[in-house]
């Protein structure tokens, strides 16, 4: 009996010892050995959760770039922010304090906004967001990624005006990014044009039937489908089932999903959207590697950022890293030409935005 009790007491001690050995071993093997100095870059993206499709594409893009950079001393440490602010903050703290990364990239607006106040002067932080005020929080924050709302709106309005569209109705999911696109659409309208919000949805809504009734009442020349992944094809499907003939429709980069287009069974054909691009060569390479063509723009951006980090940056200290990022000019990436730009208190990377359409269930670039 006593013997058994002693054995039981040893079990937790044994488990603790194993954990300690694993941790120490991990620390030793992860960077304590060898003469080659490795620079770590932290990448935080939604690898699970509702926007995982984007985060995984971004991560794949980074890995693809790094795999082509045979002799790189740059190592990427990935963390999952689950599209959740609390997760993003702990991921940032872990990357900076435990992994000792030299810079951090975070994918997503709300998660970047959550991290921004704790960046201070720790490491250069690339916030992939469309929201300019974020860079005023710390001089070490630079904004990157996504469509810039002004570029998006310029492309979309140009197209809509060429089709003589005057009255736009918008179905929108209530997230910061899509709210920005909607606000810019309204700002850019002329006096004889109108942009009306038909309905505003929650992130996980999958039933648009009642709102589709509001679309048919409005007699719009064009409908903005500013919805997120999974919702876009559902909207087209339910509109068809309710007998609604949609006028011209346009969307956001959430249209850049082959699975979404396939789910809509041809109903998205003719729709337009503006987004950043990816060269055909990159697309082919990516598809052959990952057997997936969804969120190509997000993958391309991950790829270009990793190329910049692998080839352009001087890793002497955090200030030289920041200066190197700021010196990026006419970098020839798979998205087009990337440059650092600074206006007032905003610091960001510029890149071209393209107008795209869906034809025969495939994405085509119009210009």
């Amino acid at each position, binding site marked *: 009996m006593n013997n058994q009790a002693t054995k039981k007491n040893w079990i937790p001690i044994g488990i603790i010892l194993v954990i300690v050995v694993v941790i120490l071993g991990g620390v030793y093997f992860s960077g304590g050995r060898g003469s080659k100095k490795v620079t770590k870059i932290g990448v935080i993206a939604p690898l699970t959760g509702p926007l995982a*499709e984007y985060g995984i594409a971004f991560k794949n893009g980074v890995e693809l770039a790094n795999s082509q950079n045979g002799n790189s001393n740059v190592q990427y440490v990935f963390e999952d922010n689950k599209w959740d602010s609390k997760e993003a903050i702990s991921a940032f703290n872990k990357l900076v304090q435990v992994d000792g990364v030299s810079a951090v990239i975070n994918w997503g607006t709300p998660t970047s906004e959550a991290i921004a106040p704790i960046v201070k002067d720790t490491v250069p932080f690339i916030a992939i967001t469309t929201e300019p005020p974020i860079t005023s929080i710390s001089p070490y924050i630079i904004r990157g990624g996504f469509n810039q709302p002004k570029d998006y709106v310029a492309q979309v309005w140009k197209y809509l005006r060429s089709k003589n569209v005057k009255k736009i109705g918008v179905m929108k999911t*209530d997230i910061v990014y899509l709210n920005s696109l909607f606000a810019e659409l309204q700002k850019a309208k002329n006096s004889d044009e109108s942009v009306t919000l038909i309905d505003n949805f929650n992130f996980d809504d999958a039933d648009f*039937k*009642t*709102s589709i*009734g509001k679309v048919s009442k409005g007699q719009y020349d064009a409908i903005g489908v500013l919805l997120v992944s999974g919702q876009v*094809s559902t909207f087209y499907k339910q509109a068809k*089932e309710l007998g609604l003939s949609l006028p011209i429709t346009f969307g956001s980069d959430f249209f850049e999903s082959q699975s979404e287009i396939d*789910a809509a069974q041809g109903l998205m054909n003719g729709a337009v959207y503006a987004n950043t691009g990816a060269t055909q060569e990159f697309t082919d390479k990516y598809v052959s590697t990952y057997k997936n063509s969804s969120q190509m723009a997000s993958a391309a951006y991950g790829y270009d950022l990793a190329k910049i980090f692998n080839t352009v940056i001087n890793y002497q200290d955090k200030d030289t890293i920041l200066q190197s990022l700021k010196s990026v000019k006419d970098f020839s990436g798979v998205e087009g030409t990337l440059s650092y730009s600074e206006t007032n208190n905003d610091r960001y990377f510029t890149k071209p935005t393209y107008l795209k359409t869906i034809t025969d269930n495939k994405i085509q670039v119009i210009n």
Partner: protein
Amino acid sequence: MSIILQLLVNGIIAGAIYSLVASGFSLIYSTNKFIHFAHGAVIAFSAYVLYYLFSVLELNFVLAVILSIVFASFLGYVMNLLVYKQLRKKHASYVILLIASVGILMLLQSLILILFGADIKTIGLIKITKGLQFWGVFITPLQILIVFLSLILLAGFYFFMKKSKFGKAMRAVSDNRDVAEIVGISSEKVYSWSFIIGSAIAGVAAILIGLEQNLTPTMGTSLMIKGFAAAIIGGIGSTYGAVLGAFLLGIVENFGIGYLPSGYKDAIAFIILFIFLLIRPQGILGIKRRS
């Protein structure tokens, strides 16, 4: 008039979907007396299994449906056997069981993501066409089937619980486990079977919801939130009450967003929930327990 009718039909369709979730969940709650949040993940996982069997392996649809329902039952059985039963043996409280169910929900969601990827999936059996039109109201044949099946479930539950020997055993365990044990009813057996039957209903829900909506790894969570609200409104532990609660929730939500922005949909659901919790905490068909 047709707008009001369309809102009513939209509400009935939404309610039917919620009821498919709420009925299985409520059946499990009625005997096990804890909130099995992982029920949503059983629905999501089974929908993905149907997708895999039918769209990837290209099995016959009927066979894929049967296998998906069997899978759902098995998943429920295994969850009970490996997690909940072990916790019950250690006299874990209902709060611990609830926390375990949230853990299983997250685990299964992550597993779906690893196995099937993050992009949306569609079963793709039904070609998208204009719905059938009656008195200016549109409804698709699949939506009619969903409503019809949820009403059959309502009737089926009523007779199962009231008339069948096993239903009576479930009610006995639900009412007082110790007394049920004294008269020879094995509570563990009842727990297991409630998971098997409840999860089989989740399998049916998975098929119908999977045909109606896109599949996403997190779909189980959002379905579960509405299913849970419906079960509370209907009277938690009362399976046919859950079905009624689901229809009430669907109809009120759709009439609400007919006049308010859709963003208030969840708020409407929770306002109804609060009203019930304040005025009739036992729900529509729940029994008021004496303190």
